[in-house]
C-alpha cells in the first residue's frame, strides 16, 4: 500500500529507517539467557542446594573414613575402587538428578509463565524476535544446565576430596590409594561427555516437547505434556497389542544407554567405554534431534500468535 510515498527517497523518515543502530544477535541472545537466569533462580539454586546437602552428609561420614580406608586397603583394586568412589558417583548422580528435575519444570513454565503474568506484552514490545526468545529458553536445559551441572559437580567432588585428604592425613593414612582409585582426571571428562551426550543431545526432544507444550497450553501444562504421550501408547496397545511407542519412550528416558556407554554401568565408572562414534552415528540420536528442531520451530510459531492468557 501507499507505494508512491514509500519510495520517495531522501526523506528524513526514510533515512532513519534504513540506518538503525544495530545490536548484534549474540548480544540479544546473551541478555535473553541472562533474563532467564534472573527469573528462574532455581536453575542454580537447586543444584547448589543439593551439593550443599551432599557436602554436609559427606562431612559427617568422614568420621568413618579412616576405618573405611583401612578396610579398603585389604581389598583388591576393583573392590577398592567401588568402595571409595561410591560417594563421588552418588554426588554426581544426585546433582544431575536435581538439574534434570529443574530442567523439566523450567521448560514447562518457560513459555507459559510469561503469558500467565502478561509480561509477554512487555517482552514483545522490545526488538527481540520470537526465535531469539525461544532459543534462549531452549538453551537453559540444553546448554546452561549441563555445563552448570558439570561445574558444580567438579567443585563438590574437589571439596569432598580435600575433606577426605585432610581426615586421612590427620589420622596418619596415605592419600595415594584414594587418589589413584578415584582417578578424577578420567572421571571428569567422562562426566562432561555424559552430560553433553545424554542430557543435552539425547534428551533434546524431551525438553523441546515440554517447551512446545508450555507455548501451547493455556493451563495445566504438566498434564498436556503427558496426556498425548499416554494416549498414543494406550491406542497402540489396544489397536495392535504392541508397545513399541512405550518401549521407544523408555529407551529415550533411560538415556539411550546402549548408544552411550556399556549398559548397566555408572556413567562415571572409568571401566565404562565411551562410544562416541557409535552414539553420533545412531539413528535414535538424529531422529531425536530432528524432532527437537520441529518442536522448537512450532514453539516459535506459537509464541508469535500467543498473547496473555
Amino acid at each position, binding site marked *: 500500500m*501507499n507505494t508512491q510515498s514509500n519510495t520517495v527517497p531522501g526523506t528524513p523518515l526514510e533515512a532513519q529507517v534504513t540506518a538503525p543502530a544495530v545490536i548484534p544477535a549474540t548480544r540479544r541472545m546473551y*541478555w535473553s539467557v541472562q533474563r532467564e537466569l534472573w527469573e528462574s533462580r532455581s536453575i542454580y539454586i537447586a543444584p547448589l542446594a543439593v551439593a550443599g546437602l551432599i557436602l554436609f552428609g559427606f562431612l559427617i561420614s568422614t568420621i568413618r573414613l579412616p576405618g573405611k580406608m583401612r578396610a579398603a586397603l585389604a581389598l583388591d583394586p576393583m573392590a577398592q575402587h567401588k568402595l571409595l568412589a561410591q560417594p563421588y558417583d552418588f554426588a554426581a548422580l544426585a546433582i544431575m538428578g536435581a538439574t534434570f528435575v529443574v530442567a523439566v519444570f523450567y521448560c514447562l513454565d518457560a513459555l507459559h509463565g*510469561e503469558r500467565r*503474568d502478561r509480561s509477554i*506484552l*512487555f517482552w*514483545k514490545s522490545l*526488538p527481540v524476535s520470537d526465535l531469539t526468545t525461544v532459543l534462549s529458553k531452549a538453551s537453559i536445559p540444553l546448554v546452561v544446565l549441563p555445563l552448570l551441572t558439570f561445574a558444580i559437580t567438579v567443585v563438590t567432588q574437589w571439596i569432598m576430596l580435600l575433606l577426605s585428604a585432610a581426615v586421612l592425613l590427620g589420622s596418619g593414612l596415605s592419600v595415594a590409594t584414594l587418589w589413584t582409585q578415584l582417578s578424577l582426571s578420567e572421571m571428569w571428562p567422562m562426566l562432561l561427555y555424559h552430560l553433553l551426550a545424554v542430557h543435552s543431545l539425547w534428551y533434546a526432544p524431551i525438553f523441546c516437547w515440554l517447551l512446545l507444550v508450555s507455548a501451547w497450553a493455556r493451563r495445566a501444562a504438566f498434564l498436556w505434556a503427558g496426556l498425548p504421550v499416554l494416549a498414543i501408547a494406550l491406542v497402540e496397545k489396544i489397536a495392535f497389542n504392541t508397545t513399541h511407542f512405550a518401549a521407544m519412550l523408555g529407551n529415550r528416558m533411560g538415556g539411550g544407554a546402549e548408544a552411550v556407554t556399556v549398559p548397566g554401568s555408572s556413567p562415571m565408572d572409568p571401566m565404562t567405554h565411551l562410544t562416541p562414534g557409535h552414539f553420533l552415528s545412531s539413528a535414535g540420536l538424529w531422529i531425536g534431534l530432528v524432532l527437537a528442531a520441529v518442536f522448537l520451530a512450532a514453539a516459535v510459531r506459537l509464541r508469535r*500468535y500467543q498473547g496473555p492468557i
Partner: protein
Amino acid sequence: MACIEARGLRKAFGATVALDGVNLRVEEGRILGLIGPNGAGKTTALNAILGLTPYQGELKVLERDPWSERDQLMRDVCFIADVAVLPRWARVSQLLDYVAGVHPRFDRARAEGFLAKTTIRRTSRVRELSKGMVTQLHLALVMAIDARLLLLDEPTLGLDILYRKQFYDSLLNDYFDRNRTIVVATHQVEEIEHVLTDVMFIDRGRIVFDRSMEEVEPRYLEVMVRPEQAAAARALKPMHERQAIGGSVLLFDGVDRQRLAALGDVRTPSIADLFVAVMGNQPGQAQGAL
C-alpha cells in the same frame, strides 16, 4: 509522511468482529486519542499495529508490515499496555540492564535520570512497587528509548489522580516532540483531551469520527438554551441534546457561531460530550460512518 496507515483492516475472533474494515492514517508528530467504549476494538487495533496479532487488510507502520517484521519494528515503536506488564520478579536494575542490552535506542542515563525524580529504588523488585510506581518505571524505560511511535493502551487505568496527571505531564514535557507520534487508546476522555492534536472515535470495530483538534474547535459548538428558546434551537438540527440545570445543552455540527449566540451561551464542547453525541447518533447496526 504517514506514521500509521491502514486500509480495510479487519480482524474477527470467531463470530465476533473486532475490527470491521478500519481505515486510518496517522501523520508523524501527532498525538492521537483513540477513544471508544469497552470492546470497541481499541486494543485489537493497537495489537495489529504492534504486530501482536495477524489481521486482514493492509497495514503499514513506519513503512513496515508489523506482523512479519515485529522485532525490527520494535526498535522504533514503544508500547505501554493497559495494566502493568512489567515482570513482577524483575529488579529495577535488571530491567535497566536488559533493555540496555537488547535495545539499540535505549539511553540508560536518561532512564536513570527519570527514576531519580521518583522514589523507586534500583534494588526493588517490580512486585514490591505500587501500581503507580510500576507505571512510572515503565514510563521511565519507554521515555529513554528514542522511538518514533509510542502506543499507549489505557496507560493510567487504576491509577490515582496524581499519578495520572503526572503521567501525561511527563509525556508532554519530557518526551513529546514534533518527530514523535503518540497514540493513546482510552475510554477516559477527560484526562487526555488537552494533550491531543487528533481524535478518533471507534465503535464496534469501525472508526466513526476522525478529526484534528483544530477542526473540532470551530466546527462543533455547544449552546446552553433556556426552555423558551428550545424549539428555535431544535430547528437548527442539533446533533445531540442533553438536559442541564436551567435548560438544555444542544450540540451543533457546522452551525454558524453568531446564529447560536442569539440562543444562549456558546462554548466548545468537551471531547466527552462530543463522544456521547457521536455515539448517540450511531445506528443500531455497526454501519455508520458520520
